[in-house]
């Protein structure tokens, strides 16, 4: 990707909200993906000084909208009262869909196509579908064609147990079809390559929960807006948080992917979660016209690709090349957000960042950057404790990083994700101060 041209217009992030992230409980949760986006968007839009009809477009990231949510961005735009005349489109870049939505909005603003854009991501992983297999679909087609009593009888007799094997879309989605590995297995591969042991992973996971606990209790998560279901239940905080988690408890968990000897467990992996995050992006002109408060600015973003079986290292590529393109040193980054798909994967990213051979040969950086300090990385927890609603996480990271910069009076941050299929995305942000 080329460097942002100097002629491009500045892109501001004005405000943002997210829902609490709700851990999937095995059965469909109370909210569809569009409900979640509406839940985050309604309070956000209410506190703006312009009306929802004044957006130029709405862009949402979502990997698996429900059957009644084709082009979910348009559905959400209409449900939020943007009116008939605001176009909307949905983007899909696996785990970085939410960041892709923000990047697409930023591009449209910087090129002058749009002034005011609502962008974000949403995912209801508890509603990911369960599908019939091809043999069953074929059988059903024949059944519909069979009209006579006899023909129907013959069809019934042809039914076999294998017809009833269901396809769980969520599991298939988390498996790389070309590499033949589940996402957890790609994390095992990184752990093996960079010598990351189980204990380090569990330590990392525990820290994530501890940091989220502290952030929740100290009111550092103001971006969360409560959501209500129709049955009178209220959701105010991320419910995947395990305050009582200990190393001992984490250590007892069985490996989830490379059984029985692997190291990656449910405890040191991101949670399967429902949630949404929505942001308002504006051009300089829109900021002036509507007198908008500004949270920060998108400086640039970068997308990279790599071997799908090592997709977890995507952030190293995207962040490295982004810094190089912007001619910024690693030390100049005040806060880092790297999505916690797996503890092993974030730890591998930190290790690779300090591996001169990897950085030179795989990323193309001649000079080894300064390390990513633990105390500046995912300071208020990450997907291991918060959860990882795949379409929404990218938008959450951008929003939360800006809030963190502001809370700490800091200037510059990078948000990054690894992307199933072998990609990485990174966004360089500047606080408004």
């Amino acid at each position, binding site marked *: 990707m080329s460097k942002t041209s100097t002629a491009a217009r500045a892109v501001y992030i004005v405000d943002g909200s997210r829902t609490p992230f709700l851990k999937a409980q095995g059965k469909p949760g109370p909210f569809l993906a569009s409900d979640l986006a*509406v839940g985050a968007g*309604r*309070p956000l839009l*209410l*506190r703006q000084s312009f009306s929802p009809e004044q957006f130029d477009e709405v862009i949402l990231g979502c990997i698996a909208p429900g059957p009644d949510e084709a082009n979910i961005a348009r559905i959400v735009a209409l*449900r*939020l*009262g943007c009116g008939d005349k605001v176009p909307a489109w949905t983007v899909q870049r696996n785990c970085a869909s939410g960041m892709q939505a923000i990047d697409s909005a930023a591009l449209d603003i910087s090129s002058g196509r749009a002034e005011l854009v609502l962008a974000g991501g949403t995912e209801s992983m508890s509603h990911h579908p369960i599908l019939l297999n091809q043999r069953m679909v074929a059988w059903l087609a024949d059944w519909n064609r069979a009209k006579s009593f006899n023909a129907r009888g013959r069809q019934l007799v042809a039914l076999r147990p294998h017809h009833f094997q269901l396809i769980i879309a969520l599991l298939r989605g988390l498996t790389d079809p070309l590499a033949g590995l589940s996402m957890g297995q790609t994390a095992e591969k990184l752990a093996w390559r960079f010598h990351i042991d189980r204990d380090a992973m569990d330590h990392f996971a525990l820290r994530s929960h501890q940091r989220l606990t502290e952030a929740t209790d100290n009111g550092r998560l103001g971006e969360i807006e*409560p959501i*209500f279901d*129709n*049955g*009178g*239940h*209220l959701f*105010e905080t991320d419910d995947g948080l395990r305050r009582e988690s200990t190393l001992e408890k984490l250590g007892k968990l069985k490996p989830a992917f490379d059984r029985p000897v692997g190291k990656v467990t449910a405890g040191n992996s991101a949670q399967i979660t429902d949630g949404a995050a929505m942001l308002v992006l504006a051009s300089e002109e829109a900021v002036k016209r509507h007198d908008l408060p500004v949270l920060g600015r998108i400086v640039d973003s970068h997308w990279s690709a790599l071997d799908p079986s090592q997709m977890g290292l995507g952030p190293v590529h995207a962040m490295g090349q982004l810094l190089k393109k912007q001619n910024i040193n690693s030390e100049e980054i005040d806060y880092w957000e790297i999505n916690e798909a797996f503890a092993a994967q974030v730890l591998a990213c930190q290790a690779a960042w300090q591996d001169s051979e990897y950085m030179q040969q795989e990323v193309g950086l001649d000079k080894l950057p300064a390390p990513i300090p633990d105390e500046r990385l995912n300071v208020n927890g990450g997907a291991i404790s918060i959860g990882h609603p795949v379409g929404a996480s990218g938008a959450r990271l951008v929003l939360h990083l800006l809030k963190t910069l502001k809370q700490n009076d800091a200037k510059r941050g990078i948000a990054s994700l690894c992307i199933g299929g072998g990609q990485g995305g990174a966004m360089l942000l500047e606080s408004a101060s």
Partner: protein
Amino acid sequence: MNRHLQLETDDQGIAWLRFDHADSAVNILSIEALQELDDILDELEVTLPKGLIILSDKKNGFIAGADVENFRSGMHRREAEEHIRWVHNLYQRMEDMPFPTLSLIHGFCLGGGLELALSCDYRVTRDDESTRLAFPEVRLGLFPGYGGSVRSIERIGALQAMKLMLSGRSLSGRQGKKMGLVDQAVPERQMRATAISFIENRPALRKASRFQQLLNSLPARHLLSPMFIKETAKHARPKHYPAPYALIDHWKAHGGDRGAMFDSEAAEVSRLLTGETAQNLIRVFFLQERMKSLGSHVQFRPQHLHVVGGGIMGGDIAAWCALKGMRVTLQDREAKYLTQAVERAHKLFKRKLRSKRLVSAAMDRLIPDPKGYGVNQADVAIEAIFEDLETKQKLFQSLESQLKPEAIMATNTSSIPLEDIAEGLNDPKRLIGLHFFNPVAKMQLVEVVRGAKTDPALIDKGAAFVRRIDRLPLPVKSSPGFLVNRILMPYLLEAMSLLDEGVPAPAIDRAAVEFGMPMGPVELADAVGLDICLAVAKKLAPLFDLTIPRKLENLVVEKKLLGKKTGQGFYRYEKGRLQREKVDSNYQPPADLADRMIFRLLNESVACLREGVVEDADLLDAGVIFGTGYAPFRGGPMHTIYSGGLEQQRHRLEVLEQRHGGKFHPDSGWTQLGEV
């Protein structure tokens, strides 16, 4: 040139009769319009087009019914019968046209309009929910008189037709199709093509099935009519509401004989029409129309409502307004106080809207807003928090600083004077009262309260808002209890005094119901909640010299029995159902039982009128009918006084005073009543 009806013939020779009643928002069958129809039928009988299609040019519907103005008052029974026979003849000519005739229906198709449609060969309606087919006559103390009682039975059978006419229930186009009342329900885009294809193909006419016809036979009529009577008796007493019983008798006697049915319809409907019940109900209809027109002259189209207070009242007001299409933000101190309101709203939407899509849209419009983001977007803000003056004052000061200057600022208080709440506002003129009644989704009336300093123009805006949410506005002066609670309270307290005196609750309630109240006062008090009754009574007692009955205070304060919500009040409730105990069959209630309760209500009405709590006697009647359910067939309290004879009624009150003391002392307003 016709003023209301235009006839055009297209290239294919089909005549299109377009109805667009002049000087009226809806199509009504005024005498003038019917006369034009008469002339047009003359013409059609000569020109003999290929077919006739009747349709409306009004956006809101086909025909809303006969012009009620035609039957207002002083009409002689013979005159009424002549009019009905004239329309019978008109509709018969429509039915007898030698070419196919069709009504093309959208929106309202009510009463006389539906009867006209039934005299056509075919009916095609739009298939959306806005199509409403109904015989609402029973609600005006009548039954269908333009041949409807004959033709509806012929088309869909006695069972379905009688149910429709007895209930006044409305049907959508699709429901009408299912029932056989209409031939086809189609989307708007297919209306014309469908109508033309009916005229060209002339399919067989709809008739009741053979089984349904069997239900119209003499033995079936004798078997069915007691069932209809039993069902009707659950809702209306024959003495109070004679119309449904007259309809059942009319059908039972003449069901098999078309000519006799028409004759009997003309005789019976004209008798009902000129009777007291129908005249009173027609009057109430006009009072309702008057309330509906309040605020219609102001340009105020509120889109966003902000409600502060997520309790029962605040939550239900928010839900109702979201149901009616407004965007609503609902605020309370913390998110957790809003969950029940959201849940109740969802139940209400599910009950009222049915379609999942519409329920979800309504839920999207209702926004729980614990942080109060909605205030500066709001066109109307309503406060419905607990009754504490200081808290309310602070709240309104903060609302005043955030609201748009043109937004309405209202309190739902029932007991704190507006003037006190407005203290401390920069602009005390801005505060009005919008007093809703519980349950919000059922009670049509909203008192629009004018404080001593309130800008009168805001009362009009308040009324316009109340109309926007499809409720009836009643402008009242800010004075304790406003109109409805104040008038209701002496009536309720008198009932409780009777309890103190040892009269059994069921006897008290029975007397009130026999008078025509929808529910007895003791049961009503239990339903409202005895704690609330006591609180209101305590506020009003020192002002209006009321005594609080011992039993009420005892139940609330000592026993903590608060009525239906706690399972026990004056009555006992099991799973929310009232357990009425049998009264000893030898028990003789006091002869003046009903009078004691009703006359306290009437006397208080006179006082309210004298004090100018409402503008005039008509609005008082309307307010009490729609706010308390006061027997509509009696036309309201002031009407009860006038129709019973001013002198006689006053005398009855004086007798009560001699017997029971000063609480029955006639208000000084009685002396001014004669001057009206």
